[in-house]
């Protein structure tokens, strides 16, 4: 006999989501991941001053705002015909790297650790009702202590970002041409010094803690794999003198790595709350209107596809595609890859900082073209992020955003093929149906950012929008 299991809210993610699973004999036989927040950034951007997109789109997300400033800047540069200097690229990539560190440290300690480690339950925030805590008490309490230490470290990653980026979240630094200010010697040495402390923490605490958890929860190497298709738009790559410090735009499917081709990206909306005028479209084609009355739809998240099929994006995809980590594709591999990536990013930051020349201004007086278009595709903390924009009469006339979490948390596509995370949940055995910890652990390994994924535009409304099945 089948049973329906609903988890909502899925906590320790950004934004609002529900997992709606059908369970038969303690096994997930069907599942939907549902994004339950709607805003409408793409429509909001139409008519605005193009340069404002850098600051405006950051407000899509409070934990990865820098990501959006990177993608919008790249799209604007493409549309305005601007090629940043290498110093400009180093500077903004340093800011972007700081965000990776802030994100990964917070995700591992504040979002992941409470799934595996018993935190002091004298604090109401950490009370939980499951009992699947397996670490020996000494190790458990040590990692719980690191949870609190990590707060200082992730905070200092934001401080490092603010040294050259004015403030965080929602930095003022990344802009067309690179960043707005100059790196002076005192700022460079300040960043180096903060980075040193962060790096010590990653090596001395974070990596060890991740492997300790992996040791006691080794069954999680066997579950939550999904399709095993991986994609990256590339990041910290293609520098004129430094070459590629991390990963080039690549895809992986069925054991084969290929060069990524942006022309193969489409979005499908058969199972999302949008009017289904066309089966699929390319990013520059259209932004569909919403329709909460659509019977089969269940989420605000659309279904981005590459070559017609779902792909996983994020740290594991990048670690795999760059050849840094090839252990496997699973819940625990995703967690380990994120932690190893934090170490990798700290090394990349060191290289970029060493190549900075103090006192270089990379800003010019820019002119907005009367009419143009551009795309900004880049890998950010959670994976591949794309901004596509058009300018008419010196104003934005079109804006499209496809976020990493849309790739990972998409609904079924038009061919009813499930989204990546949905596929990862399928077949999972749940030990105790009263406390289905497995599902949350698998989902959180993707580091969902539903605020980002459901930035989408919608119009229509429907009174009987959400059907509650008894």
């Amino acid at each position, binding site marked *: 006999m089948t049973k329906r299991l*609903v*988890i*909502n*809210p*899925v*906590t*320790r*993610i*950004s934004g609002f989501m*529900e997992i709606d699973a059908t369970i038969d004999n303690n096994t997930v036989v069907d599942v939907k991941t549902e994004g*339950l*927040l*709607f*805003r409408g950034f793409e*429509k909001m951007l139409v*008519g*605005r*001053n193009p*340069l*404002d997109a850098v*600051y*405006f789109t950051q*407000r899509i*997300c*409070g934990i990865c705002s820098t990501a959006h400033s990177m993608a919008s800047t790249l799209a604007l540069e493409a549309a305005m015909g601007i090629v940043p200097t290498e110093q400009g690229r180093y500077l903004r990539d340093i800011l972007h790297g700081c965000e990776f560190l802030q994100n990964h440290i*917070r995700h591992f300690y*504040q979002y992941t650790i409470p799934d595996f480690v018993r*935190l002091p339950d004298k604090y*109401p*925030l*950490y009370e*939980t*009702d499951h009992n699947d805590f397996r670490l020996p008490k000494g190790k458990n309490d040590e990692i719980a202590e690191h949870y609190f230490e990590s707060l*200082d470290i*992730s*905070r*200092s990653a934001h*401080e490092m970002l*603010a*040294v*050259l980026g*004015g*403030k*965080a*979240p*929602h930095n*003022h630094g990344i802009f067309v041409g690179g960043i*707005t*200010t100059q790196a002076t010697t005192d700022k460079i040495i*300040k960043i180096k010094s903060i980075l040193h402390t962060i790096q010590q923490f990653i090596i001395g605490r974070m990596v060890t803690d991740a492997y300790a958890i992996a040791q006691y929860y080794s069954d999680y190497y066997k579950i939550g794999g999904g399709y095993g298709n991986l994609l990256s738009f590339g990041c910290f790559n293609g520098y004129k003198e430094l070459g590629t410090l991390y990963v080039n735009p690549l895809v992986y499917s069925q054991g084969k790595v290929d060069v990524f081709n942006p022309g193969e990206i489409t979005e499908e909306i058969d199972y999302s709350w949008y009017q289904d005028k066309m089966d699929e479209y390319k990013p520059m084609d259209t932004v569909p209107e919403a329709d909460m009355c659509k019977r089969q739809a269940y989420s605000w998240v659309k279904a981005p596809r590459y070559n017609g099929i779902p792909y996983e994006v994020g740290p594991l995809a990048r670690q795999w595609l760059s050849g840094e980590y090839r252990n496997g594709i699973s819940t625990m591999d995703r967690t380990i890859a994120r932690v190893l990536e934090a170490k990798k990013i700290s090394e990349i930051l060191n290289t970029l900082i060493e190549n900075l020349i103090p006192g270089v*201004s990379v*800003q010019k*007086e*820019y002119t907005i073209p009367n009419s143009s278009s551009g795309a900004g595709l880049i890998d950010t903390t959670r994976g591949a992020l794309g901004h596509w924009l058009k300018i008419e009469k010196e104003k934005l006339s079109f804006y499209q955003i496809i976020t990493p979490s849309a790739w990972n948390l998409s609904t079924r596509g038009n061919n009813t093929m499930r989204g990546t995370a949905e596929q990862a949940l399928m077949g999972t055995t749940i030990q105790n149906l009263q406390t289905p910890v497995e599902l*949350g652990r698998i989902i959180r390994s993707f580091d969902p950012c539903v*605020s980002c994924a459901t930035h989408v535009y*919608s*119009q229509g409304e429907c009174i009987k*929008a*959400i059907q509650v099945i008894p």
Partner: protein
Amino acid sequence: MNTVKTCPEYAARLQTASDLFNKVKDEIKNGTLFKKNLVWLELTGCSGNIISLLDGANPDFKYLISQMTDFIYNNSLMAAEGETAMGKLMGITDKEYILAVEGAVATKNNGLYNVIGHWKGEPVTAFKAVKMLGEKASYVIALGACATHGGVSAAKPNPAGCVSVQSVLNRKVIKLPGCPCHPDWFLGTLAHILLYGEPDLDKRDRPLLFYNSLIHDRCPRRSFFDKGIFAKKLGESTCMFKLGCRGPVTRIDCPIRKWNQYVNWPIEDDTPCIGCAQFGFPDQMEPFITYNTTREVEE
């Protein structure tokens, strides 16, 4: 012997929040003050305010949850999930609690554009949750631009029908605008509530502790403005008024407080203030950046 006198502005920055925290610490230790329950709702927004709160150093997050409050509910940080999490939220209304809200209230489609949880088989909309919890809270603090006036979530054409927290509640709401809210603005306000009750507020319910002067009044580039020396592009060290700086209309203490362990702020980063702490942000603060220095700046 140190004979250097501290700048009074600098001293004030440190005093406003940290004196309050220290007093909270002493009084809780002495048993003259008791921790209050704190519920933090994230609604339609980017959850940037809870991230900004984690950036707080004075005090830090651990101090907040261990010494100042019993922090009951927050979607981004709590260990429990699903019904267990919602049960904690539903159970709080019988007790005394302070409600902090970030994000705007989506009103479209009966609030279904933002569902924050599932309770007894029904979706719980943000709209419903903020009304239920807002009416019974001892204090309601709206933090961040979305909660105080709709912010970016309500930007034209406001597709989700977003409104401020105040507009769905018939009661006093303390407002801490900013995008995001600086951790000191929230923690200082909270410390004031714990110690003395509601802080002095201006006519728009902002604590005077933090919102008592314009950025322009304390801007280190003010002398360039007075002399009429204006930057023509970003990255210059002169007044950015003609590039679109909203310091002259934005009431907040960024020039003396700064961000992220007090290390920097937008103007020191050679970019204009975009007025994120001012009611009307973003629509009335645009364009954020313009190179058309001949334009008339409307107030």
